[in-house]
């Protein structure tokens, strides 16, 4: 990834605002694997994840003017767009599947077959560092980040008090931090 240092973040933002195709192409080459992984983890279906990735990059291209550097880096913003697009897609799919049976049951998303399978087996093969994260810790990160679950849903899914969700999240992230630094 020697070319990674070719553009600074400010240059990337400026290039996107100036509708520069070369910058867009560079941005795609460098960030699409990470964004695609988010879509894949959320959706667990390659075709839909590909559509989500495409939609996310169109949104990035079209709404770069809304990017606010004071809230975080460009990559963080792009990740948020990819994650939210994927979760919207997952929820609309899950909702369509479940609306007849449960209407808006808080746990509808946890009953989704895709997620149940996902919780048992990781289809992607994690890096060694993340593999060492305790399953319990990883589950809370995955439920929050990749499945867009609310605190209430996580509290029910993991059977922990609502007030404990945030502290459990913090513990998980702290453990993850330690592993990533190794």
């Amino acid at each position, binding site marked *: 990834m020697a070319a990674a240092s070719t553009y600074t973040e400010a240059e990337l933002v400026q290039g996107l605002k100036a*509708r520069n*195709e070369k910058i*867009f*192409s560079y941005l*795609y*080459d460098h960030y*699409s*694997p*990470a964004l*695609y*992984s*988010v879509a*894949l*983890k959320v959706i667990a279906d*390659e075709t839909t994840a*590909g*559509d989500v*990735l*495409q*939609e996310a*990059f*169109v949104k990035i*291209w*079209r*709404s770069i*003017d809304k990017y606010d550097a*004071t*809230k*975080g*880096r460009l*990559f*963080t913003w792009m*990740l*948020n767009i990819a*994650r939210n697009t994927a979760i919207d897609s997952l929820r609309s799919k899950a909702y369509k599947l479940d609306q007849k049976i449960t209407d808006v049951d808080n746990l509808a998303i946890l009953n989704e077959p895709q997620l149940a399978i996902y919780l048992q087996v990781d289809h*992607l093969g*994690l*890096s060694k*560092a*993340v593999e060492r994260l305790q399953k319990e810790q990883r589950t809370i*990160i995955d439920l*929050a*980040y990749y499945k*867009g*679950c*609310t*605190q209430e849903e*996580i509290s029910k899914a993991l059977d922990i008090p609502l007030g404990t*969700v*945030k502290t*459990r*999240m*913090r*513990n*998980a*992230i*702290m453990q*993850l*931090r330690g592993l*990533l630094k190794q």
Partner: protein
Amino acid sequence: MDINHYISSGVLESYVYGLLPEDEVAEVEAIAQQYPEVREIVEDLQLQKEEFVKCYAVTPPPEIKARLMLIIRNESTPEGELALPQELRLNNPVPQPLLTTPAVKMKAVTGKKQERIWKIIAAAVIGILIISAGINFFLATDSKDYKARYERLIASQKKIDENKNLESNQTASVQESDEDKKLLKDPNVIWIKASGYGPHPDGAVTIGWNKASKEVYLVNWRLPIPPEDKQYHLRTITDGKPADAGILVITPSSNGKIQHLKTTTIPQSFVVTLEPIGSKGANGKTEIYQVAEMNL
């Protein structure tokens, strides 16, 4: 505020990993602006999340990039729009003003949606004003003639129903099917963007011709809805001779969808005209709206 307690509560981790409801998100962002130490931790957590996500990185299939480059390269053209799912199109069908030159230029990209929303609101407000003025006039001038009023109401209701039927029939005939989507990538189909003509300077349609089946297609983006007594025709011109390629369906719901027209052998030019219903063309009442040259 005990900032250390706030930091150790787990709220920042929950914020970065998207666990918080919107009101709490706004709160964390406000506090991060106020306290540099909170901001620093948030930035650190965001970086760490990026590293975490990269652990899973998977290279996407190459055709996605090809599609995206095509979309952004042609984003202000109908071809680029057609490559997108309906909900992402900038040119989602919207009601158009009656026979006025469209004011929206193809190049205005950002802010265009907002502009359109204002247009719709403005159109709605004007509509309400006209209806309200009509009702006032109706009540003031004719308040005693109940029978005539009743009959008029029935007649207008009938007309609305007829228009509704007409609209739904037309919509059904221009439904975008999967077959249509394939046409966009079909190497046999040549797609060209038409240019405006005379007092109608903006390109408003895309025309396609299928080399294999000889079928002609048209996608309307911004032709204004024709008045009741007129309709749009597509005519081909080959060696100076015009030929009829069919009548266009122009309704808000037909915009952005492929219309199948007549077949024609090697057309040289296409012309979109507005003509009185039932006319045979080539008379003084024909108005040219769009022209396109087919360079074969």
